[in-house]
């Protein structure tokens, strides 16, 4: 239990809690980025360099920016929207989350198996090793992942494209002609 772990854990928890509690959505996403960055440094301290840098590039660089763009595009002009931050059933959700945490913490703290001590030598993982594993043992999952990412790319574009849905909503007869 090092000082570094404690600092990063506190940063991640503060960032995540602030992200879920802030009224302003942009502030929430920015504090979520703080939690993502502290998680990435935690990965680096766990000797998973590649995953740590991937975390920064994908989450901070792509997901957070995408969320900020979505907030920008869905911002409503009138002030009466988003007057309430939490839903009507917030107490149920909070109790459920608390229950999940209690069960998980009980399982973790009741764990009696012997784990490796803190001073186990760090496994040496280079990007070369990860690349070789991806090209040999994990080649098939990598292909599936490429397929999934392509499908997600096309799906996201089709869903978010305004022309397609507007045309079919405004002019349903055109759809019938095309059939």
């Amino acid at each position, binding site marked *: 239990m090092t000082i570094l772990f404690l600092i990063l854990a506190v940063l991640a928890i503060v960032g995540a809690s602030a992200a879920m509690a802030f009224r302003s959505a942009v502030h929430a996403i920015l504090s979520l980025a703080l939690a993502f960055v502290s998680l990435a440094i935690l990965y680096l301290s766990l000797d998973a360099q590649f995953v740590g840098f991937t975390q920064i590039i994908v989450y901070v660089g792509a997901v957070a920016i995408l969320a900020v763009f*979505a907030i920008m595009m869905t911002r409503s002009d009138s002030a009466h929207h988003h007057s309430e931050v939490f839903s009507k059933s917030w107490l149920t959700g909070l109790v459920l989350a608390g229950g999940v945490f209690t069960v998980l913490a009980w399982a973790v703290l009741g764990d009696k198996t012997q784990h490796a001590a803190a001073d186990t030598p760090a496994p040496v993982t280079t990007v070369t090793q*990860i690349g070789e594993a991806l090209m040999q043992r994990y080649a098939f999952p990598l292909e599936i992942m490429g397929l999934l990412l392509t499908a997600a790319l096309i*799906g996201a574009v089709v869903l978010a494209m305004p022309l397609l*849905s507007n045309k079919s909503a405004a002019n349903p007869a055109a759809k019938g002609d095309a059939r």
Partner: protein
Amino acid sequence: MTPLNGYLLLAAFLFSIGLAGALTRRNAILVLAGIELMLNAANLNFIAFWRYGAHPEALTGTMFAIFSISIAAAEAAVGLGLILAVYRHFKTTDLDEIDSLKG
């Protein structure tokens, strides 16, 4: 308390924060952010188990985390696209107001 337990507790707490956010927030984008937080907590578990597990040289945990991050990115893109499509129809992202299946 072993270091692994510390990481697992942190991951459990982050997961619960994400779950609480996903269940209580009204803004659909922040519900998606809560789901991303839960996925991140799972990734932390993968890395911690890989680091303190029996065979770290097999790279299993790293691979799991890499694939999980790519799936989370795809999910975020499709989810935000869905939110934009819903916003175009209902003119709001407030989940308590989006309560009809029929447009």
